[in-house]
């Protein structure tokens, strides 16, 4: 139903002197409905740029992106995003943050709060309803950010290293929770990560990117049954393969 098609997308940034940097070069990608796709690649290869373009926050220099055959040009609530940095509104309480999306869609206040409460329960933070973001730990903030992104019922959820700043333990927990949510909510997830473990644990497919200019190097199908075991030999083999790919990329 909601198929995302990325066709010949390139993005070149120009600095003040007019010197161009090619962040993305001719990206082609087709993402199926309800697929979980991870993007992995060296820093600066354009992962954030690609996600921003899909969100509608940035415009490609050439090429286009279609969601269900409609070209994406501006941001809208069909595509939710969880940012690399903490992005909760610090002046709103947790519940108000989550209710923001529904409210912007024109939902009545009480109804938005109801919806928000539901999503807050989903990420298990019911008792922090009236806290301000500064009162939450990093992991809790990202949970709220996920709840906020889901509250508008997006077809596609874009996640830019959402767990990057968290410790391994919290990260594992959140990965589990995310998979549960993904299964429950049936959304398509595009997930950027630096961690091979994370990609192999989460993804249906892993898109390996290379830097300068940002290109797709390889796309790997992860045909491991779910729920996955992080320590299973198949996981290890896969991880090693991708690591080798990335290592070769770095040597270049």
């Amino acid at each position, binding site marked *: 139903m909601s198929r995302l098609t990325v066709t010949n997308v390139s993005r070149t940034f120009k600095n003040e002197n007019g010197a161009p940097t090619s962040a993305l070069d001719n990206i082609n990608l087709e993402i199926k409905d309800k697929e979980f796709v991870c993007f992995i690649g060296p820093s600066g290869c354009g992962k954030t740029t690609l996600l921003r373009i899909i969100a509608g926050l940035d415009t490609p220099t050439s090429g286009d992106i279609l969601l269900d055959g409609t070209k994406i040009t501006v*941001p*809208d*609530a069909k595509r*939710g995003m969880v940012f690399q940095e903490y992005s909760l*509104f610090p002046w709103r309480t947790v519940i108000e943050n989550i209710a923001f*999306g529904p409210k912007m869609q024109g939902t009545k206040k009480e109804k938005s709060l109801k919806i928000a409460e539901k999503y807050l329960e989903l990420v298990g933070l019911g008792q922090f309803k009236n806290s301000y973001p500064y009162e939450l730990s990093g992991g809790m903030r990202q949970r709220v950010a996920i709840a906020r992104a889901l509250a*508008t019922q997006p077809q596609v959820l874009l996640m830019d290293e959402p767990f990057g700043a968290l410790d391994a333990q919290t990260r594992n927990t959140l990965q589990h929770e995310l998979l549960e949510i993904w299964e429950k909510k049936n959304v398509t997830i595009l997930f950027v990560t630096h961690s091979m473990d994370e990609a192999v644990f989460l993804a249906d497919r892993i898109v390996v990117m290379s830097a300068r200019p940002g290109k797709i190097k390889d796309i790997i199908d992860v045909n491991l049954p779910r729920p996955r075991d992080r320590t299973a030999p198949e996981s290890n083999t896969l991880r090693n393969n991708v690591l080798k790919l990335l290592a070769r990329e770095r040597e270049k």
Partner: protein
Amino acid sequence: MYNRIKDAVRKKGLEALSLLAIVVLWQLVADLIIKNKLFLPSFVDVVLSFSKVVKSGAIFTDISVSLLHFGIGLFLAFIIGIPIGIAMGWFKTVNRIFDPIIEIIRPIPPLAWIPFAIVWFGLTHQSAGFVVFVGAVFPVIINTYAGFKSVSIIYVEAAKVLGCTSDRALIRYVALPSALPSIAAGMRIAMGVGWMCLVAAEMFGVSTNGLGYKIWWHYYLHQMDFVLVYMLLLGFIGFLIDRAFRHYLDDRLLKWRTGVVM
């Protein structure tokens, strides 16, 4: 009860002692060294004069007239300054239009506007309010502008992907709350400047009441003890206004800020 007192003494004892010492010192210097009520009225003189203006009721009219001037000026400064600051901070074109005008007018000391205030408004409350306004409006504009300029792009983008896309909605739901600490700081500065302009604005005689006016009037009568009463009143009320404003902000509007406000 005893413990309560002990606690209070430990907490504010030194501060109270310091105030007490300066009062005693003042009294002694006035009584024993200066011995001239024109040069330096003593603490007791000031207290006596204070009770006189309270008894006659003059002090209450003076305070309310001054607060009226102050209120007119500040009210105008807020309702004109904040929208201008917002428009300049959000729209580049508006900034380019307003910036040169503001940069030319801003360095003119507010008191230099007094002749025009009189020509335009006559000897009225509005005229004093206008001088206060001229002093107060620029800090409001500049801090609102600065607050809007420093709105983090990440909040704007987060709002956009949540469906908040029009300029109006982004200003209202993202930029304004995010810039509020800076706007509030501007308002506080504006109140300080406005309070200073008040004295001068009243000295040119827009009415026969007002704290600033009375300072001048008593000076003509060589009643320096009354001058001092009004000086201390100006300081004290200025302090109270600032405190009340800050309290209001911390409690109501800026709860979400972790550290100390401003």
